[in-house]
């Protein structure tokens, strides 16, 4: 007749293995989650750096500010329910920051309900500005390529088609660089609207 082996003893003897397996299991679950979170932050950034009116903000190797916003009618689209929001920005790159880095920027405007609008082509909307539409490069007066240079201010414009019924003072222009090298992942600039 054999003596029954107490189960509790088995758990005690295997506890090191069991602990290791639990740690490995948790790690195997956490790592893909962390990777997904990283990717999600790149695609849908959620960490705004709020910039007060007229203030400069440091972001991705440059200083940025909002020069102002204007509302203009749509001249080339027959829509009575929309207007063009023209946002003018200024950026001063730090030494070592290239125009290509700045050109990776994306602009948008958002409202308090976190709805947002992407920029449109100003020519399609019928707005005209002498300023370039890229954050770091553009065409000069003689159609030559010009770029933002470290230490020098570079102004550019972004045009958005937004509903006429919205209060433009509630729309917040934003600057996003989706794959930041210096700023925290998922961060972006959110400029307080003009009063």
């Amino acid at each position: 007749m054999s003596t029954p082996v107490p189960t509790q003893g088995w758990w005690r003897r295997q506890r090191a293995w069991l602990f290791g397996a639990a740690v490995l299991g948790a790690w195997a679950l956490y790592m893909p989650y962390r990777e997904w979170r990283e990717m999600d932050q790149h695609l849908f950034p959620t960490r705004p750096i709020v910039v007060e009116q007229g203030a400069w903000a440091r972001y991705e190797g440059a200083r940025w500010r909002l020069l102002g916003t204007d509302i203009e009618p749509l001249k080339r689209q027959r829509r009575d329910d929309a207007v063009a929001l023209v946002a003018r920005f200024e950026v001063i790159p730090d030494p070592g920051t290239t125009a290509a880095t700045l050109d990776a920027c994306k602009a948008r405007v958002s409202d308090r309900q976190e709805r947002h609008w992407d920029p449109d082509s100003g020519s399609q909307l019928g707005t005209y500005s002498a300023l370039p539409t890229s954050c770091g490069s553009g065409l000069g007066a003689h159609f030559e390529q010009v770029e933002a240079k470290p230490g020098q201010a570079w102004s550019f414009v972004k045009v958005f088609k937004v509903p006429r019924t919205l209060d433009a003072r509630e729309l917040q222009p934003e600057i996003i660089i989706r794959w930041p090298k210096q700023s925290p992942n998922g961060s972006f600039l959110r400029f307080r609207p003009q009063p």
Partner: protein
Amino acid sequence: MRARNFTVNVHGFRLARTYTVAGDALFSGPPVRTLRTPGVWMSVVARVEALQEPGYVTARLRTRDGYYYTANSGARPHVPGVNLSEAELSVGLPQSGAYFFELPPDQVAGAHIQFYWGLLQPPDMDSLLDIDLETGQMSPQDVQTRTTDNIDLRP
């Protein structure tokens, strides 16, 4: 009907054998073009609106047999401002127009139209609106009667 990020109102559909569209006169093409199809053209008239972020609403037909016909691209027929396929939507700015399909006449009866966010396949874990076009009782004769020879899509 309301989905996660868009609303759609379907106002009805029309069937046609051919469309007349403006040609590419600017590029030495004919001033008027006639678009033919081996089946029938179905245009589903709708109004779509983005609710939270800019993007695209794609439509497809699900037939009684379980086949899918995705709406034609914005290039066929090329009627900017009318063809809602690949039309970028801005939040709060609804667009009215139509989605255009080419399908065999015998697939019209019982067709449903489905709408989803984006330009590719219906995304997982997101809205898919399914609207009955109420063609279930249509006989082949009804389809033929309701199909007009030509619809002029020129502005």
